[in-house]
């Protein structure tokens, strides 16, 4: 008899791995039967997970931290044994602003775009109509990446501009209607805005942090403990799905599955573009290729580095969503579960890093790293400002980035 997992998700391209694990038989190979539960808000994905309607969820990483710390909900410890992907989001601005901040062809340079944007933000603030950004959730990587970039360019995300929450399916509408001047969202929603001529993609979040953690697979900690063996089987199924997802020969098939009404209910062409790291930046423009726009498999992308969770925690502290405490930092460090990932994949062909945390943003060129199993080379993983995050010195890092 196969073990059953119901998995909540939001219709976004990076919900791909559990969907493909189900549709392409990777879950069945591991003796699992998956049921995908589609929702339209992170609040509902989270509620279903917290109150046992689902066993696992596709979740924005910071929301797993917020839920564990009890922000917005009674605290319930969540566990993250698997990262569903890195990056894959973009910043799209209204065409008249794009003309000022990113006049060239192709994606802009984050510092150059930020410097020009600072001028626009100042003018708009002086005119009493500050620039308004839409992000998909307060506790989202989109929010923290956007804030990191703005602040690094001398734009205070709370004082100089406004950042509001816009659900992903409404992002294109909101920018088209002028309710927001810019959006930071995952695919296919940037491309939908571009297709309508309502926005221009000026940056990919991968330009802000080359290897930024995005969606994760979250479970309630007690569920992980009770069903440890089955969770490890799920991890193996998801890794197989990830390997398949990045295979160029499988791309069209993956896009066709994701586009179905029960999943993304979206445009297959736009979805396959995102999978292929190809972006149409502005209407009637040329498609550009941005390698590793989405990052779903290589370099043990699915490994839940504790340092990734801790970086997000510092950003939550930085923007006053939580106040720093050593106790909470220690709690956050237990949410990501590299130990579970390892025991699921020991003896397989997958490389397993030797460490559970790494100094984020410190790899400036291809570097071989120590592993417990297999060979692993990390490529550039820098932040746009070349800042380095040492997970053993959170307070020092916070002091440097006011």
């Amino acid at each position, binding site marked *: 008899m196969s073990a059953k997992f119901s998995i909540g998700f939001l219709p976004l391209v990076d919900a791909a791995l559990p969907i493909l694990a189900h549709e392409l038989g990777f879950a069945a190979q591991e003796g699992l039967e998956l049921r995908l539960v589609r*929702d*339209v*808000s*992170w*609040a*509902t994905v989270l*509620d*279903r997970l917290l*109150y*046992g*309607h689902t066993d696992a969820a596709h979740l924005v990483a910071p929301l797993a931290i917020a839920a564990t710390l009890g*922000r*917005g*909900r*009674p605290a319930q410890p969540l566990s993250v044994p698997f990262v569903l992907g890195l990056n894959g989001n973009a910043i799209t601005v209204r065409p008249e602003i794009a003309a000022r901040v990113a006049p060239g062809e192709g994606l802009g340079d984050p510092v150059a775009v930020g410097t020009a944007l600072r001028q626009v933000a100042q003018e708009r603030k002086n005119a009493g109509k500050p620039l308004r950004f839409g992000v*998909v*959730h*307060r506790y989202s990587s989109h929010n923290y990446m956007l804030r990191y970039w703005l602040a690094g360019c001398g734009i205070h995300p709370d004082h100089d501009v406004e950042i*509001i*929450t*816009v*659900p*992903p*399916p*409404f992002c294109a509408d909101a920018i088209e209607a002028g*309710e927001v001047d810019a959006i930071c969202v995952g695919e296919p929603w940037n491309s939908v805005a571009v297709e309508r001529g309502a926005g221009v993609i000026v940056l990919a979040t991968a330009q802000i942090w080359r290897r930024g953690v995005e969606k994760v697979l979250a479970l309630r900690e007690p569920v992980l403990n009770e069903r440890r063996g089955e969770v490890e089987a799920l991890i193996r199924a998801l890794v197989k799905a990830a390997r398949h997802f990045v295979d160029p020969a499988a791309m069209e098939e993956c896009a066709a599955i994701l586009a179905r009404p029960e999943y993304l209910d979206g445009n297959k062409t736009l979805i396959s573009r995102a999978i292929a790291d190809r972006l149409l930046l502005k209407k009637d423009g040329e498609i550009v290729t941005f390698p590793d726009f989405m990052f779903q498999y290589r370099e043990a992308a699915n490994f839940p580095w504790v340092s990734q969770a801790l970086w997000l925690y510092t950003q939550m502290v930085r923007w*006053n969503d939580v106040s720093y405490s050593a106790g909470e930092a220690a709690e956050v460090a237990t949410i990501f579960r590299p130990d579970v990932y390892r025991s699921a994949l020991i003896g397989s062909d997958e490389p397993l890093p030797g460490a559970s945390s790494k100094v984020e943003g410190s790899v400036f060129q291809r570097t071989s790293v120590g592993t417990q199993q297999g060979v692993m080379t990390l490529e550039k993983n820098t932040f746009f400002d070349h800042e380095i995050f040492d997970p053993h010195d959170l307070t020092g890092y916070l002091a440097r980035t006011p």
Partner: protein
Amino acid sequence: MRVAIVDESAVRASVIEEGLEVLEDCEIFVVTERRGLVARIAEIDPDIVLMDLGNPSRDVLEEYFTVSRALARPIAMFVDESDDNAIAASIDAGVSSYVVNGLAAHRIRPILDLAIRRFHAFSRLQTDLAEARNKLAEREAIDAAKRILMQSRGLTEPQAYSELRKTAMNQGRRIIDIAEAVVTASKLMGGAA
């Protein structure tokens, strides 16, 4: 007590509103417009907000509550944290609730229970409606198939129906499946049906 019902389905909102009207000292506000939601909620200043789980604006509303807490405004929470059964029941029914002004649990429960019942009633209503629609569509297909048989083979209506039924029985299929096959085949052959 001020209750805001946020629902993009105006029909369901009114089903819930009607259910809550039996409660005394309840003032009910229905919000069906997505645009300007936060401003409208601020204006209503509700004690409790009911919202369907399928509403994408839940994240927007929660953001608003988080921000207003930062401004020392009322505290929001997801129903009563001590009562997991109530939460499970409301998720089953598909409704979320936000208690804004720190009302005591005994004042919240009747509202929530009623809302849950009305949500269930509404989904039953929808199921019935879908069933009725299906039945209607089936009857139309059978009528069309009968007409085709009557015209192409010169049968009477009872004969046409009996042909359909006989074929269905022989093939171990439902009459509607045979009827649809007849209609499709006729279309392929250039028929009008």
